[in-house]
């Protein structure tokens, strides 16, 4: 008796002796875990804050309130009201004249050039289209809020060091003086930059927007979904439910898993060779981009769909078969509906990856300067990640903040897609 008690106390002793070490190793493991999560979170915070910090100012744009007299002498001297005549009128002069009202002393050629450069050179085009839309405006005075030139906007946002010598910065001493004067008069204000969401690409930062790229990306994802989802799901159902298990299906399976890991640029090369060179589809078109991304997303959808099908418990299949349903009825009436939310979730995550993909698009000519907003998937178009790439490469200073703004738009859509996937999963998930 005493023997056994001393025996058990010796075990307790051994356990107690090691206890401290075990607690410590558990503590260390937790510490490692927390550190790595903190580390990852810190990177994420640095990443986001740097992008937001650089990009938030792009959502506003400096504008100037001016009155522009639509001088009939300049627009239509012969009173023809002929559209061609009016199209080629010198609208720059109208803008210049109304700017000169603020600073009547401007006379030298250099000063005139500097004064003209205060406002965006899109202003005259805007007046042109206003006049062409409504010719009765000729002879009247328009009160407009016009965009400031990007260089002036950068100055107002504090991105220009005016302590430097005049020759070393983008805006002149005169322009600084005039801008400050206009600002104290209350004519300059920062307004929401709606152009960013309503215009296509432009070489003037203040006129550039992401709408063209957004619609291009939308068309691409639409085509990707139309092509890849039904094919991917069909392939998954066949492989999972109908295909015989033999060497051949094993081979197919290995290949599908491999395809999912193939670098995306390879799909771009494939798209170039097959869709553009062989089928003669147009370069830079979202149709081709969508097909290429469909090829890329296809294996991901198959893998996700097969996993979703596998997670449907065999009892469902057995019960259906047991009451006399055919194989087809079992699969399509019972297994497939239950697996569908999982398939959708997988597909959306695959599509989110496709949305952020730029490498394959480089090969099929989507890295192009496209101003017009595409109206069909066959029109030339950019895509969001490509727009980011193009703007990052643009020399103008104003594009620095716009690049970050475009990244924010892209991240927003990725967030929306991934949240939808999570929402779908939580809403339709069935616990067995």
């Amino acid at each position: 008796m005493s023997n056994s008690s001393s025996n058990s106390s010796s075990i307790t002793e051994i356990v107690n002796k090691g206890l401290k070490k075990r607690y410590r190793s558990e503590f260390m493991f937790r510490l490692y875990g927390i550190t790595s999560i903190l580390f990852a979170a810190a990177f994420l915070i640095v990443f986001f804050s740097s992008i937001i910090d650089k990009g938030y100012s792009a959502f506003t744009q400096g504008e100037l309130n001016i009155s522009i007299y639509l001088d009939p002498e300049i627009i239509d001297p012969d009173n023809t009201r002929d559209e061609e005549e009016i199209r080629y009128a010198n609208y720059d002069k109208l803008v210049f004249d109304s700017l000169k009202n603020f600073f009547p002393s401007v006379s030298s050629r250099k000063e005139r050039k500097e004064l003209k450069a205060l406002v965006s050179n899109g202003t005259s085009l805007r007046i042109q289209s206003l006049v062409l839309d409504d010719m009765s405006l000729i002879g009247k005075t328009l009160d407009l809020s016009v965009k400031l030139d990007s260089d002036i906007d950068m100055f107002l946002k504090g991105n220009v060091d005016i302590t430097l010598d005049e020759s070393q910065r983008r805006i002149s001493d005169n322009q600084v003086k005039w801008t400050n004067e206009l600002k104290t008069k209350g004519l300059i204000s920062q307004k929401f930059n709606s152009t960013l969401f309503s215009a296509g690409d432009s070489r003037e930062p203040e006129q550039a927007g992401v709408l063209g790229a957004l619609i291009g990306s939308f068309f691409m994802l639409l085509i990707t979904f139309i092509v890849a989802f039904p094919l991917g799901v069909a392939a998954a159902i066949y492989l999972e439910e109908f295909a015989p298990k033999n060497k051949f299906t094993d081979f197919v399976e290995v290949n599908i898993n491999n395809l999912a890991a193939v670098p995306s640029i390879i799909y771009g090369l494939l798209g170039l060779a097959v869709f553009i060179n062989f089928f003669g589809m147009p370069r830079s078109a979202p149709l081709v981009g969508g097909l290429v991304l469909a090829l890329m997303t296809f294996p991901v959808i198959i893998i996700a769909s097969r996993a979703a099908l596998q997670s449907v418990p065999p009892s469902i299949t057995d019960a259906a078969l047991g009451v006399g349903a055919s194989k087809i009825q079992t699969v399509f009436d019972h297994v497939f509906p239950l697996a569908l939310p999982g398939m959708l979730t997988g597909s959306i995550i695959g599509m989110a990856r496709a949305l952020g993909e730029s490498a394959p698009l480089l090969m099929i000519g989507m890295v192009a300067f496209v101003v017009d907003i595409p109206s069909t998937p066959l029109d030339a178009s950019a895509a969001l990640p490509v727009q980011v790439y193009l703007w990052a490469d643009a020399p103008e200073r104003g594009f620095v903040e716009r690049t970050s703004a475009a990244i924010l738009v892209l991240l927003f859509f990725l967030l929306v897609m991934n949240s939808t996937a999570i929402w779908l999963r939580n809403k339709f998930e069935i616990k067995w």
Partner: protein
Amino acid sequence: MKKSISIIAALIVMATMSFTASAARDTIKIVGSSTVYPFATVVAERFGKSTKFNTPVIESTGSGGGLKLFCKGVGVEHPDITNASRRIKQKEIDLCAKAGITDIIEIKIGYDGIVVANSKRADTLSLTKRQIFLALAPEIPHPNGAKQLIKNPHKTWKDVDSSLPNVAIEVLGPPPTSGTRDAFGELAMEGGCKTFKWLKDIKKENKKRYKAICRSVREDGPYIEAGENDNLIVQKLNANPKAVGVFGYSFLVENSDSIQGSFVDGVLPTFENIANGDYGVSRSLYFYVKKDHIGTIPGMKEYLREFTADKTIGQDGYLTEKGLIPMPSSEYKQFRSAARKLTSFKGLN
């Protein structure tokens, strides 16, 4: 089953749509040089916004890549215009001719300087082409004057020449696929190489070897290929005042508040110096037009007109604000009339 039939139907419809689309195109397609891209896009945008034509679509593929696409054939599926930061090569003319493209219009749009620049926080560098060659070539002549090549031993600028600062050679420049790199090799490196008489003499005997010696750039670290993204080079220069960058003049114009151009052979890369030819590292920019497409694709003539107008590439044209160096007026008139009269390219002379 129904679903798959509808998918196949949709695919067939899309495919036919794509063919009809390629049968008629109403937007000009332009490919080519990444150096000309910032200029051509400005012209295209203005052209699209001020006329009733669509805005041309411009793809930046590099000069060589652009000419390759351009010379694939005549027809709406091929680009109408290609930009180039160098002149077309005989090889490419032959390639074009093989595909049935014999009628090309060559338009020179102006000049671009290649600058060697560093951060404003460091001192302005004053280099000669010979020093550039000695700093960046993989093999250089033996310092004792013997006619033999040794592996480039220079680690700092001071090693190259005692007048230069004692900082490590760290040059950020474009990769070999870039037209800027070609021009840098040809103008700056070869320019320095030629100053050694015995190296220059090799040209007569063995042109290939001469090019390999004179135009290559060392790969042991001091020259860092920074990709086609010139903005990235500018950012890196700002972060590291010891580094030196090689890129197009237009990027220096846009960033003149933070970086400065270096003297090359005693000349600063300024607008005037490049325009009058004093600055030694500058090249011509071109675009090539497929004449057979004029009339088929709407707006080609008008685009040519817009690009060659005085307000565009003239002495005070709007492209000069973007950093393009205009041609002297006699040369400009020649190309403007070529654009108006659609004069065909007669071949390299």
